[in-house]
């Protein structure tokens, strides 16, 4: 094997310029793929982090049918205290769950006593909400970021609403809502802070204390619209989602059907489509890399066989077994792939390191100066590396096969 590799490496060095050009193509391909995976991956993680850590949480538990009619924020699909207790028990039992936050959600009218507009109100337990969505306080553009997000009698409103209604921190406003029985109730709040949206100034979500929400809706018991769940390890999302679904399967309604539904952030956010698009683009870039390596290596190997026909005839005539002739050319493809992979990998890792040192910033919606910190998993690097090497060997297979099947007499006569 060593002999085959030694001869293969010398044959590659024989046509230095051509080998270098082929290597360059492989290296550029690898660089493009690994950098894209690292940058797009970090962008995706950052955005997913923004969405899960400041709004949605990693998972949400609702009563069956709630998500289908979530635009109406139906109060008749809230979870009763007994049901909430069972959900909390199931969450407590799961070691992957870090914390959770119960929310009461409803639609209401927001008034500054002169004008009125609609608002989606989230009644939250400030401490538990901050633990479940730790980036939420950071979205406060006006008002004290420190301390509880909202206290009793306070409201945090979205930037869009504050601008439109010309209200600011410290102003008194009134929120009017219709409860489940159809009676209209109102409650005054003092504006505690103003929040920017995750993806821009849009969004009509305000936050009040959960007890104020229940009071406004005149709930007789501690109902909950949704429970947002935060996991210890985001990478275990799918598995934990399944486990929680399984744990809650036993809770059925009067018809004997599951009474609850569990959704991951991806089921609830349109950004999941963008994330899927990034994954799709990554796949296309990988396909491009495979094509580049395939064409580049196949081209160089076809040339190598064509230029060495007499040499192939000679080694075949003196008794070199066809399998060894095959391995000689496969080894050239393998070494091209390996050299390109190692160089491409080192350059890509250096580039990723360089970007992390440089720390370029970018804006995403209202999020200013987000630092791009590309990272790439060792698994991704190894997968791409293995892909390039395997494709390089596959690309040399046809020329190598042709060389091994060559008739020595015709090959020796070749001019």
């Amino acid at each position, binding site marked *: 094997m060593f*002999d085959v590799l030694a001869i293969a490496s010398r044959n590659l060095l*024989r046509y230095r310029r051509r080998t270098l050009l082929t290597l360059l193509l492989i290296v550029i391909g690898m660089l493009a793929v690994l950098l894209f995976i690292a940058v797009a991956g970090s962008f995706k993680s950052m955005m997913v982090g923004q969405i899960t850590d400041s709004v949605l949480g990693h998972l949400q538990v609702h009563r069956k049918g709630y998500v289908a009619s979530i635009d109406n924020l139906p109060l008749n699909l809230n979870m009763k205290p007994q049901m909430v207790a069972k959900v909390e028990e199931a969450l407590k039992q799961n070691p992957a769950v870090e914390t959770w936050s119960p929310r009461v959600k409803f639609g209401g009218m927001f008034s500054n006593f002169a004008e009125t507009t609609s608002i989606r109100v989230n009644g939250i337990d400030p401490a538990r909400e901050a633990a479940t969505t730790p980036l939420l306080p950071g979205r406060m553009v006006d008002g004290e970021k420190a301390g509880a997000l909202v206290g009793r009698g306070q409201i945090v409103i979205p930037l869009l609403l504050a601008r439109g209604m010309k209200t600011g921190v410290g102003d008194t406003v009134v929120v009017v809502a219709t409860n489940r029985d159809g009676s209209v109730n109102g409650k005054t709040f003092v504006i505690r802070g103003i929040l920017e949206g995750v993806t821009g100034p849009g969004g009509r979500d305000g936050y009040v204390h959960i007890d104020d929400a229940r009071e406004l809706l005149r709930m007789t018991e501690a109902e909950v619209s949704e429970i947002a769940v935060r996991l210890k390890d985001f990478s275990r999302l799918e598995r934990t989602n399944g486990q929680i679904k399984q744990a809650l399967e036993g809770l059925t309604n009067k018809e004997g059907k599951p009474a609850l539904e569990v959704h991951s952030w991806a089921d609830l956010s349109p950004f999941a489509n963008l994330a899927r698009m990034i994954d799709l683009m990554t796949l296309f870039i990988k396909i491009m890399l495979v094509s580049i390596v395939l064409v580049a290596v196949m081209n160089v190997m076809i040339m190598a066989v064509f230029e060495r026909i007499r*040499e192939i005839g000679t080694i075949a005539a*003196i008794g070199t*077994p066809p399998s060894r002739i095959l391995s000689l050319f496969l080894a050239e493809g393998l070494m091209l792939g390996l050299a390109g992979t190692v160089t491409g990998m080192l350059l890509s890792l250096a580039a990723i390191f360089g970007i992390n040192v440089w720390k370029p910033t970018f804006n995403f919606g209202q999020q200013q100066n987000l630092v791009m910190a590309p990272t790439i998993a060792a698994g991704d690097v190894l997968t791409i590396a293995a892909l390039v090497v395997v494709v390089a060997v596959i690309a040399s297979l046809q020329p190598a096969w042709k060389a091994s099947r060559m008739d*020595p007499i015709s090959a020796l006569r070749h001019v």
Partner: protein
Amino acid sequence: MGLVTASNLTKTYRVGDIDVPAIKGVNFAIAASSFVAFVGPSGSGKSTLLNLIGCLDHPTSGTLKVLDTDIATLDRRAAARFRGENIGFIFQDFNLIPVLTVFENVEYPLRMVQLDGNKWPAEKRRARVLRLLDAVGMTDQADKRPDQISGGQKQRVAVARALVSQPKLVLADEPTANLDHDTAYRILELMKKMRDDFGTTFVFSTHDPKIMGEAETTFTLEDGRLQNGGSHV
């Protein structure tokens, strides 16, 4: 019984729809340790005959036995193995491998052709190559590449390569055609010396009347037929 025996041997090539006979029912026998030349003008069938003896081609009809093996029974893989173990080749254009040094070119058959690695361990292999290089007077050029030596030196290396695996038969197709007269004679002298030293049978082809006189046995081919009746001396 000869080392090589041919009986009513024919070889016909098909070119388009036409059958072109290259060898027409020849009979001959070549004794072990002999120094034999196939001579004749271009197109007389010399190279075809050497290709058949070298198991590079199959006869159309008749029998050709090399070392008691009917070469018609050898498939591609078996033929390669048979050549590697029993036959050495010397080519008109030397055909050394350009990326290997002189030493490595001579060593090549022992490393890449012989599948039985134990037969030629590194030390034994090195000793064998050095002995051959010494025999052909190329020891001091061992580290040079083929493009750094002359045509005569290349053919010396080719002779050493042909003999390194101790074959019983060496076939040389026009081995002196690309050499000047003096060098050609020196190569023939070298081949004879190798025959004397190692007992190897040398069979070569030539169309040069001066060179053919160096052979101990000469078979004259004309239009695919042996003119001297195929006898051997």
